[in-house]
């Protein structure tokens, strides 16, 4: 029997039981829809996480004081700090082969006041190099050059959020903001970096390191560096070796014994990013599995209906066999029927998946992903579900004895 004739027969049989076919199909529709939505959503979420961590700068190590020691018994003149300005100077002198840039950052939360407004945010003091490490440019005006960065000039580069809060209707460039009472002239506004792991990246103010030391450090920044040192590397794969080298140097400079713990901390944000991404991926995989289970349940629905259909049509099967239908003809007939059921369901499921993925992307502010390969695979899976779950009923139909089937009373 030609495949075209078989297909026509199958579609007609499905059409005869429209409501039943539709309800059965819904299982596949939701299964495929869920798989697509979950995979697309997972990719969107991962991309979003990646973006967040990329805003930190990708190839950076953060050297900081060991916060575990703060307030502990060893708290000395540094107030828990162990890193010193001397460390920074020696590090710069060392010019390690894998290190590209080094920038110290001091940071505090404080109140900003402008003509038009009032805003509490974090203020960082650093050098011009910091902008290179963070790979962060201004959108308007200018950031500091080397000289300004190392000076105590009362200037500031502000993030977009701060600009919006303090200067909602004016050009912020050249305006004055007061930070802890001191006036600073706004040099530039940074481009937006959106959300970071610690919240809004754009809610920040950057001032020259020495200005910060003089006006915002309580001890004037005498000996201890109560902040962080950002170290960026030449190449992507140098984080491990650089971290080792830095640890070695700092332990030496801090005169730590072999049995002493580090009194500083070196973090690799990229690793955080990786961990975060891994956990997102695990959740995404889990959801995809749940979706796959629902597809499986949909497949069982197909099988169930096909079994019912075989029983209902026992007599028809008998008639067909009597006039010459071979077992394989009968099997194909039912298999094509379940395949058609699953394929149409799969197509509708693709539509549903697309719409839900779009909705999720809008809702969570992700990028919309609808990978063609996933769609193709999902559609193939739907077809596979039709075949796999249709196989048993189809085989049962084909194994019927012609006489028994012909005698079957409905």
């Amino acid at each position: 029997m030609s495949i075209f004739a078989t297909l026509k027969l199958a579609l007609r049989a499905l059409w005869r039981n429209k409501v039943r076919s539709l309800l059965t199909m819904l299982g596949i529709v939701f299964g495929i829809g869920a798989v697509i939505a979950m995979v697309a959503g997972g990719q969107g979420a991962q991309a979003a996480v990646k973006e967040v961590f990329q805003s930190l700068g990708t190839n950076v190590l953060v050297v900081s004081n060991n916060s575990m020691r703060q307030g502990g018994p060893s708290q000395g003149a540094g107030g828990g700090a162990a890193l010193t300005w001397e460390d920074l100077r020696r590090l710069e002198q060392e010019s390690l082969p894998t290190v590209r840039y080094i920038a110290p950052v001091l940071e505090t939360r404080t109140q900003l006041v402008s003509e038009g407004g009032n805003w509490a945010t974090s203020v960082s003091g650093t050098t011009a190099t910091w902008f290179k490490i963070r790979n962060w440019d201004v959108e308007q005006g200018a950031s500091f050059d080397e000289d300004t960065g190392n000076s105590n000039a009362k200037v500031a580069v502000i993030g977009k959020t701060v600009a919006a809060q303090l200067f909602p209707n004016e050009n912020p460039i050249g305006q004055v903001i007061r930070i802890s009472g001191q006036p600073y002239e706004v040099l530039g506004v940074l481009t937006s970096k959106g959300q970071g792991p610690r919240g809004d990246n754009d809610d920040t103010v950057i001032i020259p390191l020495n200005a910060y030391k003089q006006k915002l450090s309580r001890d004037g920044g005498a000996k201890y560096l109560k902040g962080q040192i950002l170290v960026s590397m030449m190449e992507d794969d140098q984080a491990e070796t650089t971290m080792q080298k830095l640890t070695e140097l700092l332990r030496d400079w801090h005169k730590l014994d072999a049995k002493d713990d580090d009194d500083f901390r070196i973090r690799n944000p990229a690793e955080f990013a990786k961990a975060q991404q891994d956990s997102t991926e695990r959740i995404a995989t889990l959801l995809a599995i749940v979706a796959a289970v629902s597809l499986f349940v949909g497949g069982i629905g197909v099988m169930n209906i096909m079994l019912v259909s075989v029983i209902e049509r026992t007599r028809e099967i008998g008639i067909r066999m009597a006039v010459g239908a071979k077992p394989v003809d009968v099997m194909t007939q039912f298999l094509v029927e379940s395949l058609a059921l699953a394929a149409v369901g799969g197509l509708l499921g693709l539509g549903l998946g697309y719409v839900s993925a779009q909705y999720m992307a809008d809702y969570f502010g992700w990028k919309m992903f609808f990978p063609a390969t996933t769609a193709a695979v999902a559609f193939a899976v739907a077809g596979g579900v039709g075949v796999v779950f249709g196989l048993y009923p189809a085989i049962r139909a084909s194994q019927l004895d012609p006489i028994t089937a012909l005698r079957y009373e409905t």
Partner: protein
Amino acid sequence: MPPLIEMRAIERTYVMGDNLVRALRGVDLTIEQGASIAIMGTSGSGKSTLMNIMGCLDQPTKGNYLLHGRDVARLSRAQLADVRGRMIGFVFQSFNLLSRTSALENVEMPLMYQGVGAGERHRRAMAALERVNLKGREDHHPNQLSGGQQQRVAIARALVTEAPVIMADEPTGNLDTKTSYEVMAILQGIVAQGKTVILVTHESDIAAYAQRVITLRDGLIIDDRKQTPLTPPPPEKHDQEAA
């Protein structure tokens, strides 16, 4: 040329729980091509069982059955289906048409399984319907046809493959006398074309239209005689088409 049907010591036993029902207890039968044969006997004598075995719908428990010289016992299910499709046309007491399917499609169905193309299928099915005087009814579904008309669709379905044998199990069992004559007239026309018609009946006035009458009792042939067949009265013109 081997005989059409050659049966040797055919037995058919059904197992019903602990009981054995011996529906056929050793049937020897030879049927040559081109004859009309009636199989008679009381209810439960094994007529349908015999016919199902002859039609390759069922297999004997014991004995040999050669159809056109081929040993049926050696054929696979698929080969049996093929034999049924090409060699035998069935007509059943309960018509056994596909419901919600037009007369034309019912008649086309056997050709589908022989891989006949759509155009030829249509042409041959239309011709078969014409032979049973159902021209103009091809789009009717079984529930829109009378019993006699349904049985004629079933006969058209048996004819469409040009199979050499038509097997009919009580084809007139559900029909009134007048309609029965119509059906018999059609079947006799088929015999006249050189085909073999084997029909099961328990009405002797139906068996009177056959050239040979075989009588079964309790699974054995007790009588087998030749006779001069009657010709059914010509169908009255007016009931032909009360469409």
